[in-house]
């Protein structure tokens, strides 16, 4: 065997952890100590990061554009809500597993149907999936609480030890951080695996992917189901942390919001979800305090600037700046 290509060495190292990958986790733990009064908000940010991360797998890597991802967030949330409400199943960790299973199954089934299509048709069908679930949650109000949802849900302590902390949200925050970390590890392993590379291949050139003999649709459906399961976990953590659920978790607003967050942060980059959710939610939080009537204007202008001048989101802009700095 001749000496290996430099490109092969680079490829074999690409999945290795970089020093800066510790930053978001260090920041997450630091925030726990630095902002004890903002942990409820922090928990919402963590849930949103997890939701956006699940979307990144299908949108950023597999290139499946969806406006219905809240369907799976809602499916996960309603799973733990209904289990708690009707069967007294309030143990949180098994609830997360149940939420992942249910949301994943819905993802598998709906993905199997809608991923026969592409482009705008697919976009419409993802919307329809979500609308169907939303209507179902509205109609079967004996099970779901209908429009009002299910308020005042209580869950058992995490691992039988840590009570959900209704005043300071300390255990909720750490719980959400742990769930995010676990799911992140799953997604990170996936995107660097051959499966993840083949998703990128499907995004980059569908025709070629068929022509190398890849089972394209099976891969897409599987990715869609995994992503749905992760979104389901996000929804379940949301319900565990807040103790309520209503139809808003399933709506277009949430689907569109998470899409905006991912694009703002930079899709197909793993950490775009982190940056996007942080920036979006902090902006939303501070602007709505400072300008209660006109805050959406500030958010809108920011999004327009990013869309115009940072085509690959904030992370894409950062990558370009780092690249320019290194070249000099």
């Amino acid at each position: 065997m001749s000496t290996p290509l430099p490109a092969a060495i680079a490829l074999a190292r690409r999945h290795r952890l970089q020093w800066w990958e510790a930053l978001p986790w260090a920041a997450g733990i630091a925030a726990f100590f630095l902002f004890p009064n903002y942990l409820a908000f922090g928990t919402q940010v963590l849930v949103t990061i997890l939701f956006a991360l699940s979307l990144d797998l299908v949108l950023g890597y597999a290139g499946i554009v969806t406006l219905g991802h809240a369907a799976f967030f809602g499916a996960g949330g309603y799973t733990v809500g209904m289990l708690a409400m009707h069967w007294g199943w309030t143990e949180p960790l098994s609830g997360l597993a149940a939420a992942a299973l249910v949301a994943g199954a819905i993802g598998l089934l709906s993905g199997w149907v809608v991923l026969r299509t592409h482009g705008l048709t697919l976009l419409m069908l993802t919307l329809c999936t979500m609308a169907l679930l939303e209507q179902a949650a509205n109609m079967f109000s004996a099970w779901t609480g209908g429009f009002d949802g299910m308020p005042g849900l209580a869950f058992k302590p995490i691992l039988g030890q840590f009570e959900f902390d209704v005043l300071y949200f300390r255990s909720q925050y750490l719980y959400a951080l742990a769930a995010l970390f676990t799911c992140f590890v799953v997604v990170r392993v996936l995107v660097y695996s051959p499966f993840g590379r083949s998703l990128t291949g499907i995004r980059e050139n569908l025709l070629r992917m068929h022509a190398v003999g890849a089972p394209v649709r099976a891969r897409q459906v599987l990715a869609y189901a995994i992503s749905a399961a992760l979104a389901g976990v996000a929804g379940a953590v949301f319900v565990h942390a807040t103790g309520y659920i209503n139809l808003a978790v399933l709506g277009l607003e949430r689907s569109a919001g998470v899409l905006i967050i991912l694009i703002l942060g930079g899709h197909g980059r793993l950490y775009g979800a982190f940056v996007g959710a942080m920036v979006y939610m902090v902006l939303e939080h501070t602007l709505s305090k400072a300008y209660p009537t006109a805050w959406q204007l500030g958010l809108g202008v920011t999004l327009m600037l990013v869309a115009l001048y940072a085509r690959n989101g904030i992370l894409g802009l950062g990558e370009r700046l780092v690249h320019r700095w290194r070249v000099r």
Partner: protein
Amino acid sequence: MSGALLETRALCKSFGALDVARGIDFRLDAGARHALIGPNGAGKTTFVNLLTGLLQPSSGCVLLHGEDVTRLAQARRVKRGIARTFQINQLFRGLTVLENVCIAVAERMGAGGGMWRPAGRRTEVVQEAARLIESLKLDADAGRRVGELPYGRQRLVEIAIALGLNPRVLLLDEPAAGIPSAESHILLDAIAALPTDIAVLIIEHDMDLVFRFARRITVLVGGAIFADGTPEEIAANREVRAVYLGSALDA
């Protein structure tokens, strides 16, 4: 009785009123070096698309190793040994040359769906891809994104991907188009170095290349086989010269 690797019988394809394949009977034997030529719009690419399953024929059938694969999806035919290159590059432009070839090799080895071990650590896949890249003299560009390469270099990546599938039948749709003439020998060397038992079908307009490469030539005109024979027979065929070859050969 026959050693035909790939065969078509009365293959027809029409788009509405337009017949692009009209009863094509064709066979490709093991070890064939076959060229498909014909004027623009003769249906050459359509024919390749029918062979690979990108298009479904209106009637007729495609046999691979004597088995009817007419209804088989593209990916399944690839698994049975048909690989192709496209007339217009179909590559993963955002990925490096090495990754492009790795994706193909991984699929061929059945490793493309693996979810655990990182792709870059599958040494058997990466080594095989690197070997192909070296054989096509692409090693200097292995770490570059395909989209950054000159078109001619991209053409070679197209071929590396097809070879990475370890085909029994290789269909090359105008492989030399866009490759600077100074580099076309890399392509020819790569084709010459292929195992002798695999069948190669090449669509090409460069008659120089066709007559150097092919041991058999089929001329397609208006979706039907117009002539078929050895290069000498085709070159001597008056009708073929009139329809197509004329100026190309006299020049």
